[in-house]
């Protein structure tokens, strides 16, 4: 019972924070409600307190600090440092929204954002279509189905950086396997990571390879929850395969597919390891997405520009929050109870 109570309270508290005014249930809570909640559910509050504190420290503090830094001109040379005998105080100052103005009026942020959007949309789109196709194939009774399922989940089971490094070897222009195979067929080697357009293609291909298992497994689960009676009834009525897919499978998958698309969009938008380990954003800055560029500001250039990096970080957060809000609103107008 206690567990049950704590859960509902945690949910309500979470709703207030995350959803805020958009929840729009009308009348503001009377002041006595809080007191009543405290007296009735004090045990539940005590139970969630550690989690709230830990999350507050681990997520809240860095977030607030990041937002603060984005409003200053902090860099490596003016932050406080204490190294042995050298005590150097912080000398950076508050500059207001200058960093945001610079980022939003300059070409670098918008240019990077453009490619980040192309990257996200193409990765999610291709991954979703491939995952859907594979899930449908594997949902049938075919020989060796579990072996196929295993093989297709494999990319997910290997740590991301290992597979990205493996791809980097495959892509090597002179010594990579891909170009050796092409060479064997008498085709000129392709500059996979050395030509800006090919590099963009290559990073998307690797991310699709990494992302398909998740899509496939999630959609397969969705497919299996669609009652087979619906298909049988449709078949009786003479529906074609396409009609069954269009009018039973797709609507039946809707709850699953909306969730995986949202998740996969957020993950891909911030997919640091694929870009960083494969091309480091290169050649030049051709494959640099917002997070890798923010990392570059903070860790690769010198003096490290903490302020600009935080600014980009906050802008990424705002963009993703906006996306999630719009997405949720669109779904709700279409009748999903999100």
């Amino acid at each position, binding site marked *: 019972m206690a567990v049950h109570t704590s859960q509902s309270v945690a*949910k309500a508290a979470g709703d207030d924070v995350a959803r805020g005014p958009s929840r729009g249930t009308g009348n503001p809570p009377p002041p006595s409600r809080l007191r009543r909640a405290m007296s009735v559910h004090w045990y539940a509050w005590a139970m969630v307190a550690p989690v709230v504190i830990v999350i507050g420290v681990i997520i809240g503090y860095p977030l607030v600090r990041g937002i603060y830094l984005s409003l200053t001109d902090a860099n490596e*040379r003016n932050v406080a440092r204490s190294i*042995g005998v050298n005590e150097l105080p912080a000398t950076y100052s508050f500059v207001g929204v200058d960093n945001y103005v610079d980022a939003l009026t300059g070409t670098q942020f918008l240019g990077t954002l453009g490619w980040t959007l192309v990257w996200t949309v193409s990765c999610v789109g291709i991954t979703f279509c491939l995952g859907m196709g594979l899930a449908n194939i594997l949902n049938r009774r075919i020989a060796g189905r579990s072996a196929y399922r295993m093989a297709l989940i494999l990319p997910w089971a290997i740590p991301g950086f290992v597979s990205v490094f493996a791809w980097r070897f495959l892509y090597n222009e002179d010594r990579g396997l891909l170009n050796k195979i092409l060479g064997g067929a008498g085709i000129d080697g392709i500059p996979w990571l*050395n030509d800006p357009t090919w590099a963009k293609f290559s990073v998307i291909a690797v991310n699709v390879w990494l992302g398909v298992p998740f899509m496939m497994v999630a959609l397969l689960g969705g497919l299996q929850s669609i009652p087979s009676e619906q298909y049988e009834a449709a078949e009786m009525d003479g529906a074609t395969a396409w009609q069954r897919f269009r009018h039973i499978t797709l609507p039946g998958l809707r709850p699953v597919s909306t969730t995986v698309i949202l998740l996969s969009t957020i993950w891909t938008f911030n997919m640091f390891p694929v870009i960083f380990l494969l091309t480091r954003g290169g050649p*030049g800055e051709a494959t640099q997405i917002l997070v890798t560029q923010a990392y570059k500001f903070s860790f690769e250039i010198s003096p490290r520009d903490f302020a600009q990096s935080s600014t980009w970080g906050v802008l990424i957060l705002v963009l993703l929050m906006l996306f999630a809000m719009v997405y949720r609103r669109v779904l709700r107008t279409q009748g999903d109870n999100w």
Partner: protein
Amino acid sequence: MRRGITATALVAALALAATACGSDDESGGGKSSGELSGTVTWWDTSTVGSEDKVFKKIAEGFEKKHPKVDVKYVNVPFGEAQNKFKNAAQAGAGAPDVIRSEVAWTPEFADLGYLAPLDGTSALKDEGDFLEQAAASTKYNGKTYAVPQVIDSMGIFYNKKIFKDAGVEVPKNIGDLKTVSKTIKEKTGKTGLYLRGDDAYWFLSFLYGEGGDLVDASSKTVTVDKPEGVKAFKTVKDLVDSGAAKTDATDGWENMQSSFKDGKVAMMINGPWAVADTLAGKEFADKANLGISPVPAGSAGQGAPQGGHNLGVYAGSKNLEASYAFVEYMTSVETQAQTAGELNLLPTRTSAYSKQAAVDSEIVQFFKPVVETAVERPWIPETGSLFAPLVTEYTKVLTGQTTPEKAASATGDSYRKLLKGWK
């Protein structure tokens, strides 16, 4: 489901907190009874697979002289060392006691307060013995922050066998380089030159060859976007576009070394740090097959960058005394003669050049005059920052994403942002 997520998040959070708290416990030490003790951690950046073995052996030799000192040798890849050290030094945890700092990093580390001043400590011995050029980068604001370990420059490494097969001579200038590459391609089917496209250090000899420079510190002027700089960008672009040189935007070092070692390209521009690794290649089982000659001259003459490495002591080290002694040992005449003999690295001490090991090394003898005439960079804190903007534009030029003119001016703009108030 929701409970599951919360539980996972909590576990993840705890795991994070646990790793964040676990910092390594550095054992202090020092000179309690006149004898050095404790641990000295050294971050070396030498080439893995060849140089690192020798340096590890030498570093551990310090333990024989001071039995109570424990030397921890750590090899950090050169490309990552600058950032890794800055991360650790700023966080105050996990930084080594001694760092092998590239010459351009030294003033930057010193400016940030990460290095201990060495004047008057046991780290500096026979200061007058150091080559003036080598010592220049260790000084910042009137103090000495590091001790020069090796000095270097660049030259053309060539495969004598391929040159003989093609019947060509070593190119003296860029024009020669193109015709030689063309002949090699026609006669042997091999590519002439490997030009590293992912590191702007390899661009410097072309820039100096056209009479350009990155910046002019004496007049506080950015010079990379002058016509000479544009011309240098044009030169490298032309080398790649005409097929005289091949390049890569990633994995440049590995690709360069393996294609040269396997005899797929006839030439590369490189420095003494690559010699040990190159000689391990199958084309160079006969060491005499490796030829070295000065970098090809541009329209204004010939110019190779002067580089090298210093040893600095981390200001937050818990074991300063032993670290100073370790730095002195690693830069002593004996050690330098040994690395000259075994690795063909150039000593920074004048007296080490007269040791037999250095006299016997052809490569040391070749590079000695090259270093003397090599172009020095200004040793200002920002010198270590000049490559990041340059390499982006350099790679863009080589991969056809921008024009030499635009690349030069974009590099100039970012330099002016970096160097406040410069022209």
